[in-house]
């Protein structure tokens, strides 16, 4: 991998981690309302996949959606503004963390319904097919979502119609408090792809290179009109399910140990340094840059006016 690509991947991952840490602090300070779900530990997946996507490619995201949003090149200021319920937020304070969308970059939205984005991404892929473009759609979702009926229906439809959609399942070991071995009767989720006659690929979701390579192939395949695929990335959720999760269902090692044992950022750094793609100083400079841009983004959000009052029917209906 060339240096630019490697550093771009690193930068995206670090930006996501920084966002999650900062959002957590803001939440703790009472500035964020509702719920937030941290993507920490899964950064390599969004980064590795979205590196292959153009702004006119689409993604659907999840309740744990900050990472996808950032990897799809969202504006951080608008993201923070949304969390803070400001008028300058992506959704003008109407959506919050669970509904951030950025249609200008093809992000069709985080989704509070587990599995809700899967049929939608499939429909976006139908648009590409129908209009004869080489756009693709990627649906990110968790292990838990893979047991939703909508996955089955969509996968069948996409394979039948050879739609350019990549289903990216992020196995982060849990669906809320349910560990993955109590979610599935099988260990290797990628086996499900065979039932739809599509490729099922397993990757180590801690290793951004592996994600990048596998996603690259599947996305290229989709662009060539060869249809959908199922990418299953295994990683670890560093934090609780949501901010404040008491995590009664986890051991101390899972709560404390996983963060360091299974960390895609540590792995990425080690790889980049080991492969001499960049020096530690260069990486540190990226980190510093990210902190700077994040602070600016937060400042922008905090300086923004609160969300304007709801206006009806205009906020709800487009034609009226």
């Amino acid at each position: 991998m060339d240096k630019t690509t490697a550093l771009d991947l690193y930068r995206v991952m670090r930006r996501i981690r920084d966002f999650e840490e900062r959002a957590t602090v803001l939440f703790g300070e009472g500035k964020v309302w509702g719920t937030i779900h941290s993507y920490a530990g899964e950064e390599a997946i969004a980064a590795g996949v979205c590196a292959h996507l153009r702004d006119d490619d689409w993604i659907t995201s999840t309740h744990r959606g900050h990472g996808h949003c950032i990897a799809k090149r969202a504006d951080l200021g608008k993201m923070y503004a949304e969390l803070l319920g400001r008028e300058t937020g992506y959704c003008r304070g109407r959506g919050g963390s669970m509904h951030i969308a950025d249609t200008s970059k093809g992000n069709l939205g985080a989704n509070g319904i587990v599995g809700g984005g899967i049929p939608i991404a499939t429909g976006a892929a139908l648009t590409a097919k129908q209009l004869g473009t080489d756009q693709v759609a990627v649906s990110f979702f968790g292990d838990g979502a893979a047991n939703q009926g909508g996955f089955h229906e969509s996968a069948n439809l996409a394979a039948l119609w050879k739609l350019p959609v990549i289903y990216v399942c992020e196995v982060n070991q849990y669906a809320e408090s349910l560990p993955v071995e109590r979610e599935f009767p099988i260990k290797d989720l990628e086996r499900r792809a065979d039932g739809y006659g599509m490729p099922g690929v397993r990757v180590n979701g801690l290793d951004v290179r592996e994600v990048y390579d596998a996603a690259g192939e599947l996305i290229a395949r989709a662009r060539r009109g060869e249809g959908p695929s199922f990418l299953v990335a295994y990683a670890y959720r560093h934090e609780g399910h949501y901010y404040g999760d008491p995590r009664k269902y986890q051991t101390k090692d899972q709560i404390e140990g996983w963060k360091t044992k299974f960390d895609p950022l540590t792995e990425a750094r080690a790889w980049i340094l080991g492969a001499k793609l960049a020096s530690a100083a260069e990486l540190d400079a990226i980190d510093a840059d990210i902190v700077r841009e994040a602070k600016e983004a937060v400042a922008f959000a905090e300086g923004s006016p609160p969300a304007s009052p709801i206006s009806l029917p205009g906020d709800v209906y487009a034609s009226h």
Partner: protein
Amino acid sequence: MQATETRAPAATREMFYNEALGDALRLEMERDARVIVMGEDIAEHGGAFQVTAGLLETFGPTRIRQTPISELGIVGAAVGAALTGLRPVVELMYIDFSGLAMDQLVNQAAQNRFMFGGQARVPMVMRTQGGAGRGNAAQHSKSLEAWFTHVAGLKVVMPATPADAKGLLTAAIRDDDPVIFLEHKLLYRTKGQVPTGEHVVPLGRADVKRAGKDLSIVTWSRQVLFALEAAKQLTNEGIDAEVVDLRTLVPLDKEAVLSSVRKTHRVLIVHEAIKRSGFGGEIAAIVAEEAFDDLDAPPRRVAGLETPIPYAQHLEKSVIPQVDDIVKAAKELVA
């Protein structure tokens, strides 16, 4: 974008209700390449009620997309397609199946625009049909419009005549919001004069299908025909009923209802869905709230009994409003 009424209606031709719907689909598909149709049984077979008959031949299988039986997936795909530039029309074979697709309709299609702060539009139509009268029993005969009217972000249309069916479907397809377009299985083979060529009936406008002065019968879908028949019979009793066909439940043409009631001072609301929490309750409530002093009698509802639809023909008839029920209620109301 919101469709505006076509001014000078072209020539008319007698059409069946299902034919009129097919005509609207054909014209809109010719007009706009982004319009596609998805659903079960809609291609070679032409749809369970022959609305899409002939469209496959003209537009081919990529625009007339016959799907596997996967209601959630299909409706969800329509949402995604609508968000990204197509204008899909989904045919859901029976409204009773909407329970399988409700999440995509309610949590996604209806709310995307709002949740995303206005970034998105979801120009899709879900056509389906409801109602009893063909012995299809409890899972193929319900009237569920009230569910959809209770969802912020959806529009709900229920045409009673072939002409309205064509004009409202055209408007629904051109509308930038998700529209739930509800047909009635016993209307498909009813006939009427329908403008040929482009014909738009804007959403949100009721139609007084019969003017009268003694009471207002507010109704929609198949019960409009029953109400008109009842009104005819009522003239024998010297009762002159006005029949207000709502046509669109959301957005509701409240002014049309209120001005009729202000004129007649009596309101009878008629629908096929079960009475409890039917849309008739909403109408009765609005009238009571906003035209209380104009009313010379309590508002009254004639609606389906609170039971699933039975199979046997005589039972089926017994649980949904018949012309006689309307006549009887109207007489009592005016008495």
